C-alpha cells in the first residue's frame, strides 16, 4: 500500500543501481556490492510496499524504514530521491565535502531517512522500540529494518531478536540481505549463520525465505502485515553480492572497490541493458 501510485519496481531497482554506481564512483567510496545486493529489496519496499509520503516525511501513520546496514546508504538515498523526497540532483553530492549524504546513512538534512546508522547492530533494537510503541499505541503502521548478514554477528541484534520474539512485536519486519559475503570472506568461513532460519524460529519469529532479486516474489514476501498477538517476521532474502554487474557478483573485492573509468563504463552498460 503506497500513498502514491506504485512504481515499476524493476525499473526502480535499475535506477537505484545506476545512481549508486555513479554516487560511489564520483565519491570514490565503497560498498557498491552491498548496495547492489539489496537494490531489488529497496526498490520493492519503496516502490510497492512502504506506505510513505514524500510531501509529509513525518506523517505519523507512515511505515517506518530503518536501514541497519548503513554502509549501503547510497541505495536508500537513491530510492528516496526517486520517490521524490528530495531532488535527484542532490545525489551527486554524495560523499563530497560539506554534503549531508554521508557514506553511511544519516537523517540529518535528508528528508525520509528515519534513522542514522553506520555502526552495525544498531538498527534492529531501535526498530524494536518503534514497533513496541506501535503495539502500545495500537497503531497500524509497520516498522521495516534491513540488515546485512555479516551484521548478524553483532550481539545487540540477538538481544533485539530475543526481545521482539518474546514481546510479539507484530508490526516489526526484519529483512536480512543474505548475500553470503561479509567484510573479508564468505559468511560461512567467518561466523557461519546456518541454520539461519531455524535460529530465528527458535527465537519466536515467523520466517519467510525469498529470492531477494525476484520481483514477482518479493512484493508478497515483504508486504507483511502482522496482527496483535502475531510474532514478528523476518524475511531472509537470498541475494547475490554485487548483483547486476557480472564482474562484481559474488565478490569480496566489490565490498570496497570503486568502479572508475573502464570498469565504470562496463558496469553502467550492463545496468543499462538490464532495464
Amino acid at each position, binding site marked *: 500500500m503506497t500513498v502514491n501510485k506504485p512504481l515499476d519496481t524493476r525499473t526502480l531497482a535499475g535506477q537505484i543501481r545506476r545512481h549508486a554506481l555513479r554516487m560511489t564512483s564520483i565519491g570514490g567510496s565503497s560498498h557498491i556490492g552491498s548496495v547492489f545486493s539489496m537494490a531489488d529489496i529497496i526498490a520493492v519496499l519503496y516502490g510497492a510496499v512502504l506506505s510513505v509520503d514524500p510531501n509529509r516525511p513525518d506523517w505519523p501513520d507512515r511505515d517506518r524504514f530503518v536501514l541497519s546496514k548503513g554502509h549501503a546508504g547510497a541505495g536508500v538515498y537513491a530510492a528516496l530521491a526517486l520517490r521524490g523526497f528530495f531532488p535527484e540532483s542532490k545525489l551527486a553530492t554524495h560523499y563530497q565535502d560539506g554534503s549531508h549524504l554521508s557514506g553511511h546513512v544519516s*537523517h540529518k538534512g535528508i528528508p525520509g531517512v*528515519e*534513522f*542514522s*546508522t*553506520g*555502526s552495525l*547492530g*544498531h538498527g*534492529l*533494537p*531501535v*526498530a*524494536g*522500540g*518503534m*514497533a*513496541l*510503541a*506501535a503495539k*502500545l*499505541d495500537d497503531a497500524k503502521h509497520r516498522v521495516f529494518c534491513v540488515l546485512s548478514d555479516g551484521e548478524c554477528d553483532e*550481539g*545487540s541484534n540477538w*538481544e*533485539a531478536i*530475543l*526481545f521482539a520474539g518474546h514481546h510479539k512485536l507484530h508490526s516489526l519486519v526484519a529483512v536480512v540481505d543474505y548475500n553470503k559475503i561479509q567484510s573479508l570472506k564468505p559468511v560461512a568461513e567467518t561466523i557461519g549463520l546456518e541454520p539461519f532460519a531455524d535460529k530465528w524460529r527458535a527465537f519466536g519469529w515467523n520466517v519467510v525465505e525469498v529470492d531477494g532479486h525476484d520481483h514477482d516474489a518479493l512484493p508478497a514476501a515483504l508486504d507483511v502485515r502482522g496482527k496483535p498477538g502475531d510474532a514478528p517476521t523476518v524475511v531472509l532474502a537470498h541475494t547475490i553480492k554485487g548483483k547486476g554487474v557480472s564482474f562484481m557478483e559474488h565478490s569480496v573485492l566489490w565490498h570496497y572497490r570503486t568502479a572508475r573509468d573502464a570498469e565504470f563504463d562496463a558496469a553502467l552498460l550492463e545496468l543499462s541493458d538490464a532495464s
Partner: protein
Amino acid sequence: MRDVFIERLSVLAEQDPRIFLITGDLGFGVLTKFEERFPRQFMNAGVAEQNMTGLATGLALEGRVVFTYSIGNFPTLRCLEQIRNDAAYHDANVNVVSVGGGFSYGALGMSHHAMEDLSIMRAIPGVTVVAPGDDWETAQSVSALVAQRGTTYLRLDKSTAGRTEREGEVFQLGHARRLREGSAATIVSTGGILATVLKAADQLAAEGIVCRVLSMHTIKPLDTESLIAAARETGGIVTVEEHVVEGGLGGATAEALLDAGVMPNGFSRIGLRGGFASVVGSQSYLRSEYGMAESDIIAAVWKMGGGV
C-alpha cells in the same frame, strides 16, 4: 536517591503518559510499585543494555520520554555507542539513569565502581550530565530532565547530603547552588559526596577558614559563571568528585576557567588518581582509602593557603 528518583518519576508518570521506564533487569523491590501502577509505561528489557538503549531510542523517536535504569556502568559504558549514535545523535528523549555512582557499590568490586562515567558522558555532544548531591536536587532534576528535550545522563548515588534546599529555592539545571558563603576558598562538589564536602566546610569554618561551597549538580552544561566568580572572589578552588580526576568536574572546571582566561588563586582536584580502586569496601571506606575523605578536603584547602 534511588527511592527519591522513583518516587518523583511516579508522580510525573501519573500526569504524563509519555514517560516510560525501562530497566535492565535491576531494581528489585524498588521498581515493583512503578510497574504495578504504570504497566503501560514500564518495561524490563532483560540483561541486555544495548537493546535497552536502542529500544529507548525507538520509543523516544515515537514521542515517549524514556528513562533507562540500571546500576553502575551497565546503562552507560556497556551501551555507550547506543547512547552516542542512537540516542544523542538523534536528539532523542532518552534519560539514562545509573544508580550506584562512584563507590556506591564499593564492596562489589571494580566492575561495579562507576568512576569514569561523568567524563565519558560529558564528551558526547548534546548530552546533559547531572549528578545530584542531595534528595532535593535528585527530585528536582528528574522533573527538569522530563521538561527538557534531548538525551541526558543522571548519576544517582547511595550517599546523599539529605535535604539542603532553602525555602522557596528554585532549581535550575546548569546553575550551581551556593550552599555556604565564604571567601577562604571555594569547594565545588558534584554527586552524593556533597555530604562530606559540607562536613569539611563546616569543620573548616569552625577553625576560622570560611569557604564557599558550590553544589555543581550539573556537570554539563557547566555553570561557568559561578566558577569564574569563585576564582575571582575566593582564595582558590577545590573540586571534589567521586570519580577519576580526568575529565570530570575538576577537568571541566579547569577547562572553563582557562577558556575564560581566569586563573584561580589556587586549584586542587580531589578524585580518584593512580589507577583502578583495587581493594573493596564501603563507600566511606573507599573515599578514605583513595583520598576523597573529609580530611583530604580539609587538607586541600589548608594547602591552598587557608584564605585571602
